[in-house]
């Protein structure tokens, strides 16, 4: 392992510390519930500090915020005979999500204190879940990515199924089935890409960019070394390396071969991956697992679901779908945007119609994650705009910003719903009212966090939404107008909910006596979320400085690719200027 400040040691520790602790917890004696909870909380705090440490080089590993490329990267053979690597790294896209994950996990563990049932099993599963989520954001080998992606399923199933609400088993299996179908689609796409990939097609610079080799001299040496290359000169060099696949998608024709029904392999891979990811996001029409899972899950798990799990879908789209299959992304950009807008509108209307407080928040997630899909999909670097990538950059940055902001606000909203549910044991919006009088501090924080979700200027939700809507304008006016209109719907359901729950003269629902002021523990969980919501609302530069270089670089590369693609595949000329065309022909 060498020293601790090596990326391999540092990042592995972040990912695997939770699972190692889980293993140790299995041997804890019975009846030590508090000790187990404290241990788990301690580990989540340590993991959070470790991720935070990379901001300022506290523990020997630094994340350089000016750098656009992957950093802190390492690769070791994991299953060499299958060509699978233990390959991880961070860039501006994944790093903020890693920090967010660690942050939300820490708070969610704090929110887990009221759990009394089977504490040991709960904590073990919780830690397994954390490992899975962190691993997904760091993995750069497609196989490794898939393994982490699936690792989360099991703990999530049990966390919803054992500790959830009345219809927990139904919700758990629904969640599991949906995600598994998505995963199987993704697995098929992984195989398709793997078997069409060929490292030999990349030139030395691209090999270096994909971290297959260290420098271009090594690239030449690598070509000489590949053992199979000599024995079987026609054998393709397949790879699971995501960065190499990105290079192949953008610089070679490997994925452009026709596969089925006249569509290219890249098109099919994109569709399969995209469906797999929007099941997770979730977008309409694959969203139906979400309201059930969110509502039935215990509060801390809802926080993780909304705060982190949904982001994995968005992350997959930006990290895998577009860079690896750009031609399909280009062709289907409009479909992607429509899926995004549809989710926004549908989610908002559905949220308006809910009577259940938690269900309303769940649908608001569908609506808010629609912005992410839209922002990622606005492929505005077209011939019409002279391949100007600026608006698309804005959209992608907005989408990423929205992911982080939604991670904070939705986790906060679910926690706020959980706080009152623990007191009065119901979530019926019609039976609330007047909480401001009984729980003033709580209500203040809750209203603040709900406003952050609404997208009020000055709070974190605003920036992402505004960037996305602005960028959509350049791409499609209709979609931009609709998505701007959704802001009104969002305001409507959130304000209406605030009015029904917190305002009003007095609380008339059941268990009025249980409405005690917020406890210290709850305050400690809610206030960091509130603080972050304000900080990211005011000082957006703080976050964008980290994300922007990587996102801009990717968008620029794709814009460049689009220009080249259009040159190679000239679009059918519109028949407006026939005389000019005749002139050209002459």
């Amino acid at each position, binding site marked *: 392992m060498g020293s601790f400040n090596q990326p391999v040691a540092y990042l592995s520790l972040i990912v695997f510390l939770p699972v190692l602790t889980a293993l140790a917890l299995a041997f804890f004696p019975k009846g030590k519930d508090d000790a187990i909870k404290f241990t788990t909380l301690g580990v989540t705090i340590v993991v959070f500090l470790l991720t935070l440490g990379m901001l300022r080089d506290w523990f020997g590993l630094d994340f350089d915020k000016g750098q656009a490329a992957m950093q802190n990267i390492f690769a070791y053979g994991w299953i060499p005979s299958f060509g699978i690597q233990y390959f991880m790294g961070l860039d501006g896209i994944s790093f903020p999500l890693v920090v967010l994950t660690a942050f939300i996990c820490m708070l969610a563990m704090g929110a887990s204190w009221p759990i009394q049932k089977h504490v040991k099993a709960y904590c073990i599963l919780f830690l397994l879940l954390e490992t899975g989520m962190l691993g997904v954001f760091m993995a750069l080998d497609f196989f490794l990515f898939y393994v982490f992606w699936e*690792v989360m399923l099991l703990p999530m199933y049990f966390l919803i*199924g054992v500790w959830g609400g009345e219809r927990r088993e139904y919700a758990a299996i629904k969640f599991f089935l949906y995600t598994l179908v998505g995963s*199987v*689609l993704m697995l*098929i796409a992984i*195989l398709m890409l*793997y078997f069409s990939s060929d490292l030999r097609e990349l030139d030395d610079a691209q090999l270096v960019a994909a971290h297959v080799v260290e420098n271009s001299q090594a690239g030449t040496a690598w070509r000489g070394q590949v053992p199979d290359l000599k024995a079987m000169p026609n054998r393709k060099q397949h790879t699971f390396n995501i960065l190499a696949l990105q290079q192949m998608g953008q610089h070679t024709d490997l994925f452009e071969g026709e596969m089925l029904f006249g569509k290219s392999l890249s098109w099919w891979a994109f569709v399969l991956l995209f469906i797999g990811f929007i099941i997770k996001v979730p977008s309409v029409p694959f969203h139906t697992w979400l309201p059930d899972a969110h509502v039935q899950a215990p509060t801390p798990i809802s926080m993780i679901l909304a705060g982190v799990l949904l982001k994995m879908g968005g992350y997959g789209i930006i990290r895998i779908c577009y860079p690896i299959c750009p031609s399909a992304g280009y062709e289907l950009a409009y479909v992607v945007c429509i899926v995004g807008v549809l989710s926004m509108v549908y989610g908002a209307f559905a949220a308006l119609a809910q009577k259940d407080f938690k269900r309303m928040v769940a649908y608001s997630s569908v609506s808010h994650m629609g912005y992410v899909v839209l922002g990622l999909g606005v492929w505005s670097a077209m011939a019409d705009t002279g391949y100007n990538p600026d608006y698309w950059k804005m959209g992608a940055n907005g989408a990423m910003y929205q992911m982080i902001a939604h991670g904070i606000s939705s986790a906060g909203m679910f926690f706020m719903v959980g706080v009152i549910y623990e007191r009065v044991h119901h979530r019926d919006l019609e039976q609330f009212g007047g909480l401001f009088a009984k729980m003033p501090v709580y209500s203040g924080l809750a209203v603040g966090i709900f406003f952050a979700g609404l997208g009020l200027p000055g709070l974190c939700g605003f920036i992402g939404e505004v960037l996305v809507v602005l960028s959509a304008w350049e791409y499609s006016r209709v979609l931009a107008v609709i998505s701007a209109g959704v802001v009104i719907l969002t305001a409507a359901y959130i304000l209406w909910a605030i009015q029904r729950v917190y305002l009003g003269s007095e609380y008339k629902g059941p268990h009025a006596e249980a409405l005690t002021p917020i406890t210290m523990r709850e305050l400690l969980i809610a206030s960091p979320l509130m603080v972050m919501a304000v900080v990211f609302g005011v000082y957006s530069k703080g976050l964008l400085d980290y994300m922007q270089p990587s996102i801009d670089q990717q968008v620029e590369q794709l814009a460049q690719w689009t220009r080249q693609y259009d040159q190679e595949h000239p679009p059918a000329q519109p028949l407006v200027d026939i005389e000019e065309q005749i002139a050209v022909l002459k």
Partner: protein
Amino acid sequence: MNFQSLVDLLVTDTLETSLPRFRPELLLCASMVLMLLVRIVRGGEKVPSFLLAILGSMAALWSALPGGGMSSWAELEPCQLFTGMLVYDTLYAYTRVFLLTFLVLFVILSRLTGIADRDEGQDYYTLVFGATLGMCLMASANHLIVVFLGIEMASVPSYVLAGIIRGRRRSSEASLKYAIYGAGTAGVMLYGISLLAGVLGTAHLPTMAQRLGAQRLAALEISSVVEEPAQITEVKVEAEEEQTAAKTEDSDADDSGHPGTQGHPGARGHEVAASKAKLTPMVLALGGLMLGVGLAFKLSAVPFHFWCPDVFEGASAEVDAFLSVASKTAAMVLLLRIGLGLGIQPEANSFMVLLVGMAAVATCTFGNLAAYGQTNIKRMLAYSTIAHAGYMMMAVAAAIALVGKDPAQMRVAVQSLLLYASIYFFMNLGAFSFVAFMRNALGSEEIKDYAGLIRSCPWMTVAMVAILFSLVGLPPLAGFIGKFRIFQALFEAGGPWMMFLLVVAGLNTAISLVYYLRVAKTLCMDPEPENRGPVSLGFLPMAYTLLVSFPVLLFGILPDWLADWAYQATAHLF
């Protein structure tokens, strides 16, 4: 070659080539005889048969392991044993180690669950050893007679094993059903073998493949054969073919007046030969199908799976483990051998790919769908083994599809099959040992009686849940690696048919989730029944279950070692 040199050749072949390589099987035979005969000697009944069984199986395993470590397999010299009856190559060596390892673990399991008690132990172990011997023969078969012998040797003891618990109606019923079904399919298979051997003039698999090729040539050139016979005699194989043709002609067409007309067939001979050219592929296809029936029975492939759920429910869980792992793997290797051996010829190839592929799709889908409604854990696992046989057959189909085209990728396909089987070994042994121990502790094999076991015996239950998810094929458990590898093989084989298989396999994975998950849900989420007392298992059963299910996690994270080993096992397949 005179008679003396023939005898000398036979003696060298038997004593120097065959018997030393056949040592593990001989050790099995010896321990069977010892177990039965030791009781004749005074005081011999005091010798526990478990001791003999475990020593015998371990000795056999020890002698089956390659001498110079696993890597020395690379230098293993492939050869044919007993004048071509058996083939000795790395695939066989691998399968034999696999079967004998299973035998050792199985003997221990039988001891721990107490199914082989003091008085009847020797019967039980003898049957198990005999069946294992048959499976070893199946895995090394190089001749259709050995195929038949091996299948029967593996099946007949299994019929008895299925009914070993005396006085239980269900058990006897299972046994009888199994025996009748087995006898029926054995008859059909034997007929198929006789058809194949009759047309091709041999039952030796490599020679059969050769003649199949000749058959094709002959069919193409049949007219030229009859018109210009003198030139053709130079080509030896075709002359043989001509001879067979003449003989069949005699028996088929009874009014054929001139038997010795090989050299000068008249116009009518021409006609007959032409019609025979059309007939022969049909006879071959029929023979192949009938042979396939026998194999499908052992594999419990749809539509020859009907015995499987009933036998699994009636027999004890230990025997189920034996049937589902050892028997199935041996049958799979046999299918592979026949498939690769005959499938090297292009015409036979597409036919066999289609046949195995269709059976795989039907088996996999049917197994998964039928498992839904089951309430008995053994019955559910029976359908699950049917489904998993389907996945494994897909790998066989991929291997056959690749055999003539891309030998390197064909090796990968076979590797995926062996890897899957090896992982399946631990999953099913673990699952059935859980069922057996729980039967002892709870007295029930109904899924609903497992409610809330996570509270009473957490470790066992966690192991079982891990096995269930591994059976679904979720990472990081080993089942995923096996499935992933098979998917890869299918993809590499390419073409619309293989893509279809891939999609079916993917869909089936999603379908299978529901019923495995239901058991996991019952184990972990349902409340414990109130009238259930404490569930006591003892240390050894728990340790055993954890031990055999640990590889399910281990090979999921570090499959490299097992994968390399499986890859080496494919070294001598073309």
